[in-house]
């Protein structure tokens, strides 16, 4: 089953290449991932003159950036990408460069948001104290990071449920989880987590729960400036911090010395430890 999308991509790309070749002769060369190609305005000029080289990755990225402008009107769909391509002067069929259609657009957007958050967090931790104890995560950094990330969804809020539905598609699931993992890992690390035991996993799972529940809340929130969502976020982060403290308390009392102390006290109470009975 995994081969079928690839065949479709290959035939789609081949037909697009033929179509583009008839409009723009520069497309008759094969497009490889990072080989630069000439933009159509320079094709007829002498090679020694200045050429505007654009790689395929940059081209795709700029088309998707323009496509984001059309999401409020056309949703996370192939139509938005086609409009974005047209804005750059390419024909609408250039959306064939993106086999997952709306999924590719959504992933591009999510990756961009996550990169912005990472940069913001890295800037923050340069200012704060580096020797942070791994048993506390800074609640203020957590709250700010989550709020900032959720606010990035605000311009696309009307169609965000559609994006969330797209993440359930088999072609999108893997990248969805990769992006989520990177986001939660960055937020956890930069708010002070330096754990190297199983709590590395429990903390990230808990924060993932917080993020997902807030995302679900914000898409149906009608309050002014999403104030109810920020209150919801605060309550979830309080739960997270409390759970961490409870775990610490439990850990303090589940060690061998404590149990052997309990055992000895029990024996003393029963009089078993007395030398003379």
């Amino acid at each position: 089953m995994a081969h079928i999308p690839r065949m479709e991509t290959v035939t789609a790309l081949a037909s697009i290449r033929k179509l583009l070749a008839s409009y723009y002769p520069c497309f008759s060369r094969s497009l490889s991932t990072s080989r630069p190609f000439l933009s159509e305005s320079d094709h007829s000029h002498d090679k020694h003159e200045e050429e505007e080289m654009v790689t395929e990755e940059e081209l795709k990225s700029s088309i998707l950036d323009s496509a984001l402008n059309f999401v409020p009107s056309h949703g996370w769909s192939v139509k938005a990408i086609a409009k974005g391509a047209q804005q750059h002067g390419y024909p609408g069929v250039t959306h064939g460069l993106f086999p997952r259609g709306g999924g590719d657009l959504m992933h591009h957007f999510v990756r961009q948001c996550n990169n912005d958050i990472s940069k913001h967090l890295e800037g923050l931790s340069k200012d704060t104290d580096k020797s942070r104890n791994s048993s506390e995560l800074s609640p203020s950094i957590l709250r700010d990071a989550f709020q900032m990330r959720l606010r990035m969804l605000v311009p696309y809020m009307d169609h965000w449920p559609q994006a969330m539905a797209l993440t359930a598609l088999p072609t999108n699931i893997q990248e969805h989880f990769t992006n989520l993992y990177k986001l939660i890992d960055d937020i956890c690390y930069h708010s002070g987590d330096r754990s190297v035991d199983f709590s590395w996993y429990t903390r990230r799972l808990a924060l993932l729960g917080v993020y997902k529940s807030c995302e679900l809340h914000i898409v149906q929130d009608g309050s002014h400036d999403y104030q109810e969502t920020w209150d919801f976020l605060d309550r979830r982060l309080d739960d997270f911090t409390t759970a961490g403290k409870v775990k610490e308390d439990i850990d303090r009392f589940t060690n061998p010395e404590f149990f052997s102390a309990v055992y000895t006290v029990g024996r003393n109470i029963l009089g078993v430890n007395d030398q003379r009975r």
Partner: protein
Amino acid sequence: MHPSLLAKGLSRTSIRGICQRHPRLLAISSYRSASSSDGMTSDKLIDRILRVDHAGEVGADKIYEGQLAVLRNTSVGPLIQEMWDEEKEHRETFEKLIPQHRARPTALLPLWNIAGFTLGAGSAIFGKEAAMACTVAVEEAIGEHYNDQIRQLIEKDPEKHKDLLEILKKFRDDELHHLDTGLENDALKAPLYDTMSGIIKAGCRTAIWLSERI
């Protein structure tokens, strides 16, 4: 299989693909290595190396703890304590390196905690020689494994990974020193040495393979 089908269907790339998806096949067909670094970026390789080394040191820490719990008051008690202290130092080094490189610790840590202690205590119950034999088997597997990692890092880029390479080389030498200590203390006199050694080494290789991925 019909020769023409074979030619059409099984290309060299797909056989390599099968071997990459099933590293055990590759391991059996080539030299016995628990790890393979084909097609991995430097970051992913370091992530994997730190994860599995940390898991190994946690395991070793627990093994010595288990052995000491049984053999604390015997003649080898102080020796085991000394080896345990060195393992604790190794573990602390990796616990510092993991956040530094944003690596992920293994999810099987609780399992290795229990398994290590059980192995240590279980081998010590059969006597000092058995405990030393267990040490020898584990240190052999770990020494082989550190050598594989050093080889992988050198293949990738010895200059870039200089610090990590130095750490790995030092730890490998420490582990081999423990191996020699074990041999000096009558490890080979343990009952059923070959069987026990084989089982423990196979267990270590499985643990290494699992920790690299999980």
